[in-house]
């Protein structure tokens, strides 16, 4: 008998329910209001009163309305068919809903129950298996989708029977497992998992070390993110957070892309809906949308579901990681999620922390970031979740609680600067304030020595130092005047301008420049180093800027041209000729 209850109080989307039996924290319940059933989650219990946050508008809910507790936490349904779906924050398939407007209490199936999948067994009858062991696989949009022993299974089992190769629906039994008491357990291609509980069915989570190529130079070269790494992008509005995130999700070397549009503009989600089905994935030749799942909880959708949306996204990511895939998870924006927490905490009349955010905000954020990571699965394969979130700091001030809490949790920090955005230096990632902790990881150094060269990290640091010196010099020039400083100051400043223009800045709308492969980035860094390591002779400071403007122009033209094409060598030769004037050989 499940627990029932009645509505006892309503404050916006917080409802107080008097329950007649046991209730657990985070349990799901349904409030019957007229003909609709509204889904809600228990967030506080006091005596008989359960405080529930309703995932919908509570308009019309009355005292005494019946409530039914579901006996489980908020769950997602896992199985083939998740890719290329557009979900809301509670994993309802938005495409299955009728009409232009969302209807309250309209919950749709996240998968396609009638659809047949071609199943190929991977395990054998008699094998000993445990949670997350691979039983077989189906092709989901050309991606190998592993059918696993449900994550909820504890201990080890032996396979009593396993379906042969053939077409099955997600609800067909594909295996029967025997537990240690010889009890039979049927397994289908679908399973459920509570979103707030991490899936830990892996053997080990080492420190991540493998560079995740994104094709964005200011990330890959200067502040790299790694497979299974975490990063965040704070920036004031208009600084290009969403554009940068979209660029990363389009280009990064990941098998699966999950985008959580959390409390942001609906038209931005529409942009993904419109663009991603058109974009071709260079490696597979298929459309990007085929390996993407979008969780859309836009800013006008219910606030409580906004909080759920990031957890839903993370759980889907963990599911695909268990299949040995590289998952890229993007959340835009985690500030909206924090604000959803604040609204609830406020209605619960909790004592507030800084800026009225809940006191446990830092803990909630770091727990969430901790679910990302690189893993060795129990069968020795690897899988990863790389997580990049954006933060929308109030007033563009990076000293606010969400930014500060995230800074403690994420290992890469990509600060978008208003000043850079104003002067159209895109991507507006500030190369000096931003950092990647992975550059300091010995594991990463070892990997990059192998993959590129053992001077790479030193070179990157040299370039960064030059940027810093350039900035200091620029300040001095501004104070003392152009002719109040030695010419050498201008040279230092212009060397840093070369780095800024050629490495940091990248044209997101140019077909060639928008995606810069690592091989090219190595080449660009080498050329840049040759230029900043050389000595120059100039008569006046005006000559300095004139000369370096030409250098920058050629190097930009090179960036715009197809790698090692005819035009590329043409510009490279022009650059070489220009450098010859100063007796410099290009690397």
């Amino acid at each position, binding site marked *: 008998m499940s627990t029932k209850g009645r509505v006892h109080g309503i404050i916006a989307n917080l409802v107080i329910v008097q329950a007649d039996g046991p209730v657990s924290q985070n349990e799901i319940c349904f409030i019957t209001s007229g003909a609709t059933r509204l889904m809600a989650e228990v967030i506080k219990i006091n005596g008989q009163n359960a405080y529930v946050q309703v995932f919908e508008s509570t308009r019309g809910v009355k005292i005494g309305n019946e409530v039914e507790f579901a006996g489980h936490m908020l769950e997602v349904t896992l199985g083939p068919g998740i890719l290329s779906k557009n979900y809301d924050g509670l994993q309802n398939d938005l495409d299955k809903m009728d009409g232009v407007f969302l209807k309250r209490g309209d919950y749709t199936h996240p998968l396609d129950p009638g659809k047949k999948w071609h199943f190929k067994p991977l395990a054998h009858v008699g094998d000993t298996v445990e949670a997350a062991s691979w039983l077989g696989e189906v092709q989901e949009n050309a991606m190998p989708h592993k059918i696993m022993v449900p994550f909820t299974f504890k201990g080890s089992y032996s396979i009593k029977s396993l379906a042969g190769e053939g077409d099955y629906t997600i609800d067909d039994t594909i295996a029967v497992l025997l537990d240690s008491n010889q009890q039979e357990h049927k397994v289908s291609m679908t399973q459920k998992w509570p979103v707030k509980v991490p899936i830990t069915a892996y053997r080990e989570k080492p420190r991540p070390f493998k560079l995740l190529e994104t094709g964005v130079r200011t990330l890959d070269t200067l502040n790299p993110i790694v497979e299974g790494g975490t990063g965040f992008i704070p920036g004031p509005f208009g600084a290009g957070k969403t554009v940068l995130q979209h660029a990363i999700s389009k280009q990064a070397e990941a098998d699966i892309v999950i985008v959580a549009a959390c409390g942001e503009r609906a038209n931005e989600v529409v942009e993904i809906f419109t663009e991603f089905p058109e974009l071709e994935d260079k490696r597979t030749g298929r459309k990007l949308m085929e390996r993407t799942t979008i969780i859309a909880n836009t800013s006008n959708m219910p*606030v409580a579901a906004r909080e759920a949306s990031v957890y839903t996204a993370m759980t889907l990511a963990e599911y695909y990681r268990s299949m040995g895939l590289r998952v890229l998870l993007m959340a835009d924006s985690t500030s909206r999620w924090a604000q959803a927490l604040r609204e609830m905490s406020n209605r619960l009349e909790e004592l507030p922390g800084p800026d009225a955010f809940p006191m446990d905000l830092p803990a909630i954020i770091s727990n969430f970031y901790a679910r990302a990571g690189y893993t060795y699965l129990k069968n020795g394969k690897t899988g990863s979740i790389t997580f990049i979130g954006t933060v929308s700091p109030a007033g563009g001030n990076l000293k606010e609680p969400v930014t500060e809490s995230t800074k403690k949790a994420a290992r890469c920090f990509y600060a978008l600067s208003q000043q850079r955005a104003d002067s159209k230096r895109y991507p507006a990632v500030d190369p000096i304030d931003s950092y990647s902790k992975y550059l300091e990881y010995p594991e990463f150094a070892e990997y990059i020595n192998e993959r590129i060269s053992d001077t790479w990290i030193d070179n990157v640091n040299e370039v960064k130092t030059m940027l810093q010196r350039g900035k200091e010099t620029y300040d001095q020039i501004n104070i003392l005047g152009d002719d109040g400083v030695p010419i050498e100051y201008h040279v230092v400043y212009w060397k840093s301008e070369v780095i800024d223009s050629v490495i940091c800045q990248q044209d997101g709308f140019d077909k060639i420049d928008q995606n810069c492969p690592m091989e090219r980035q190595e080449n660009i860094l080498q050329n840049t180093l040759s230029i900043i390591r050389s000595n120059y002779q100039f008569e006046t400071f005006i000559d300095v800027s004139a000369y370096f403007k030409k250098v920058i122009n050629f190097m930009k033209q090179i960036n715009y041209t197809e790698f090692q094409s005819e035009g590329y060598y043409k510009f490279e030769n022009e650059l070489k000729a220009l450098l010859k004037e100063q007796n410099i050989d290009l690397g």
Partner: protein
Amino acid sequence: METKAFQKIYTKITQITKATCSLNATGVGNEELAMVNGKLAQVVKIIGDTVTLQVFGGTEGIPTNAEVTFLGKAPTLKVSDQLAGRFFNAYGDPIDGGPAVEGHEIEIGGPSVNPVRRKQPSELIATGIAGIDLNNTLVSGQKIPFFADPDQPYNQVMAMVALRAKADKIILGGMGLTNDDYLFYKNVFDNAGALDRIISFVNTTDNPPVERLLVPDMALTAAEYFAVQKNESVLVLLTDMTLYADALSIVSNRMDQIPSKDSMPGSLYSDLAKIYEKAVQFPAGGSITIIAVTTLSGGDITHAIPDNTGYITEGQLFLRRDTDIGKVIVDPFRSLSRLKQLVISKKTREDHAGVMSAAIRLFADAANAKTKQENGFDLTEYDERTLKFARDYSNRLLAIDVNVEIDEMIDTGWELFSKHFNKEEVGIKQTLVDKYWKNN
């Protein structure tokens, strides 16, 4: 609403604050309307049998034995074609002396559009103002505010935009409008002979502030009727959203909620987003475009209201007085229309994007030259030319009194380039320069 044979009347109010009152009642739904002593109120909180009502007209003069009746419904608006040309108050009651509107009664603040059913906005909205059309083109289905200081002529610019935009319906949501501004809008619309396509919901400074909270929902409910049922393009003008947010903070304060930044309620972002996200391009062709006004105090855009707004809207427009020409211009540096790239050089001439960026860059050069001049440094010959260009550019393109077609704006751009610069200095793609450069 079906008539009830018996409507229970409550007469015992247990608590009264400046904006709310509480009483014991049963069978009441959340967000339901009630009449308290003849004033409209809405349920905002129910605990057991204690119901808290937000009284829109303010609680002045309400006695503890006031008559309270519940209406069994959330705020509604009767929608039909009869709305066109009419002026209403925040409750949707006519204030122009005309008869009540008959039509289908629907609840305001209705559900959101399913994001997968939205279409990407792609229709350009021409306003004739070059600072907008040339530099920050508006697109149907967009939401964009003017960030303006209270002394700037934003109401005039909005009225101008509304009349020139080729929208099927224009809906004005006035919040805390002074009576003078209300009459201004009324006269402008009247004189333009455009009254039949204009609908106004107005809360003036004479009315209680909490009433304002109904205005955007009323305006947008009417907008949805015309955009969804009639497939019309609807332009919604909301002025002034800062006063709307102030009303939100008054209510949350009276309900003892903990304020977050700048004494605003913690839910400010969601509250504003619910309004602005009603801007949409529907698949069947109708659209809702929102142009709003957010007044700033001392130009501070880091204040919670403009800050949250900036994260929600698709860009913002800044007005500024250009002292060199003595006119108000649309600031090309701080203004931004995020959707402009969906139409620029796609729905407009191929050289639009190039001319726009080149002109802004040269205008920035002029700004630098000006700083140099003010700091007492010598100006180069190029600096002198940029300054001359800036004056012409302000006068002939940025000023808000400009009213021309987009092609003419682009042509004017080329004309100014060739007057003050040579081809290399402009830095536009060679093929376009060859085609459009004006040889004088």
